[in-house]
């Protein structure tokens, strides 16, 4: 005997249909409950409840003279890597991306049923000769332990690496205010300044709190950032500050740093560091 045959035959045929429909509807609803739950006892997490991680992105050099080569990797069966230049549409990633101009590439991963990853942005900057033969003053001078080649380090077109203790590519300060005063060899039209910094939270190296650009004692641009709070974070940053094009022969970059390492950090109460390896004028 099928289940609908137990419904009393005296009930109107339409009502029998309704009863069957409602029964099936309940079955469907129960299935939906299983899908939504995922967190109920004895129930399993569903694919559509999970977000993908982002791809691993590598670049041969974030500063380049001719071209930058960017590679992405995401080893998960059935998943795709998508990328886009600046604010263009996404394309499917299939091979290393080559660019001969400054910009950024945004990546994300996708897979059917799963939620797409957060976006990951990789900036890269084409080097130029605007700082060649310029006079750069660092006030105050970098800490003796991390003085690099002084002002030359900021215009040598060489990227520092995570091992900031070795080599002469990084300049490091523990001062709350740092000024970089640049006198150019010849005037230029300036519309963007890139400041390349290091974040290494375990080593108490944070991004600047604020960067201001001054020309002829006038404020041209200012940027502010919240303090990173990921205790393991180690990353390179290339901070762009854009503004309406102006002709300059000198410019001052004023960097304001946090005063104290925050409470949640093992070195709380000490002075944080800021590390810069390059300044690029465009």
């Amino acid at each position, binding site marked *: 005997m099928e289940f609908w045959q137990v419904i009393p035959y005296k009930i109107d045929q339409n009502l029998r249909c309704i009863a069957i429909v409602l029964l099936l509807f309940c079955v469907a609803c129960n299935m939906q409950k299983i899908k939504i739950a995922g967190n109920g006892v004895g129930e399993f997490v569903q694919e559509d409840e999970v977000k993908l991680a982002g791809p691993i992105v590598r670049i041969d050099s974030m500063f380049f003279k001719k071209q930058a080569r960017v590679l992405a990797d995401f080893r998960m069966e059935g998943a795709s890597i998508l990328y886009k230049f600046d604010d263009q549409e996404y394309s499917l990633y299939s091979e290393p991306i080559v660019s001969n101009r400054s910009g950024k590439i945004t990546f994300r991963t996708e897979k059917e049923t799963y939620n797409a990853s957060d976006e990951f942005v990789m900036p890269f900057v084409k080097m130029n000769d605007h700082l060649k033969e310029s006079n750069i003053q660092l006030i105050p001078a970098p800490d003796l332990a991390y003085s690099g080649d002084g002002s030359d380090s900021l215009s040598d077109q060489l990227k520092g690496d995570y091992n900031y203790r070795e080599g002469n590519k990084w300049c490091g300060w523990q001062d709350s205010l740092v000024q970089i005063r640049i006198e150019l060899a010849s005037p230029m039209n300036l519309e963007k300044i890139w400041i390349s910094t290091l974040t290494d939270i375990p080593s108490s190296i944070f991004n600047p709190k604020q960067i201001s650009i001054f020309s002829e004692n006038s404020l041209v641009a200012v940027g502010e950032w919240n303090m990173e709070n990921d205790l393991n974070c*180690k990353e390179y940053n290339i901070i762009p500050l854009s503004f309406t094009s102006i002709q300059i022969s000198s410019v001052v970059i004023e960097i304001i740093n946090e005063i104290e390492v925050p409470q949640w950090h093992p070195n709380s109460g000490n002075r944080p560091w800021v590390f810069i390896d390059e300044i690029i004028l465009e």
Partner: protein
Amino acid sequence: MVRRNFIKQISVIGLGGFSCGASLLANPSLYKDLIIGHNTHRYKVDMSWGALDSKSYPVNDCHEMVQDSKGRIVLLTNHTQNNVIIYDKQGQLDEVWGTKFPGAHGLTLKVEGDKDFLYISDNERHEVIKTTIDGKIVNTFTCPIGSGLYESKDQFVPTETAVADNGDIYIADGYGEQHILHYSFEGRLLNVFGGRGDDELNFDNAHGIAIDNRNQQHTLLITDRMTNKLKRFSMSGDYIETINLPGAYICRPVIHDQYVYLATIWSGNGANGTGFVSILNKDNKLISSPGGCEPMYKEGQLQHMYQAIKLFTHPHDVCVDEDENLYVAQWNSGKSYPIKLIRI
């Protein structure tokens, strides 16, 4: 008639509902259980296995888990309302105890005769405490000041222990000076090796230690977490080999059958929230990484590992039961309870 029309309308709505239900039925992809892992070791995920009333039985970090002789799952947390939470395998609460282990971190079970004992590494008390399975303190290992290795007790920050068949105890000073301290069953310091440094026999976060009994000749497996390495030493402290797991910040090795299971707290460049689980086969090759990317070897070298899905936050330990299901305890993960992975 009026009633009949009403019923017809209801039927349409009902059919609409049915139609919706039918389309759901016809699209099974909407109900796909998440399956994580690779090759022979794949799992479904039960997030609610050990969830308890957080007001009555709170946890901070869920650091480590072991299975006792009765088959129960024993969880160690650094919440001093209930440092030890014991579940049955269905995730039902069996008992709790422990209020004096503020830095409860490492948990090792050793069966002596017909009795279970626990070794709790407490990195705030700077001690390893041996207890019965119901929480009675049997012995305490404090900083070996007399050894000349430490200037103050605070420098000794044990993270894990391993206990040999003869009762000898190996303590990993993983948050301290990176020594591996070898004690006799009676508590006499027999040997010290490892220590901080850059050589293969040194450590940068000797976080976890286990006795590898997969071969007749037992050896020690010790995680060198910050360098993404698993190092093998003889029981007398001689360095033997290194197993490289690039990108995997492994916490402690857990040996089960012919496999080594390792909670991997961070991955890639070590950013927060990037954990997964690593599983090595008898040849110490990574064969599965639940929550992580597919393991890949090129010319014998494991390629860089990283997280693939945002499921785990900071796995800190893996417990394997007799059915080869996994229980994953997590550090700094929103005071969440362990996750069960069911082997498929």
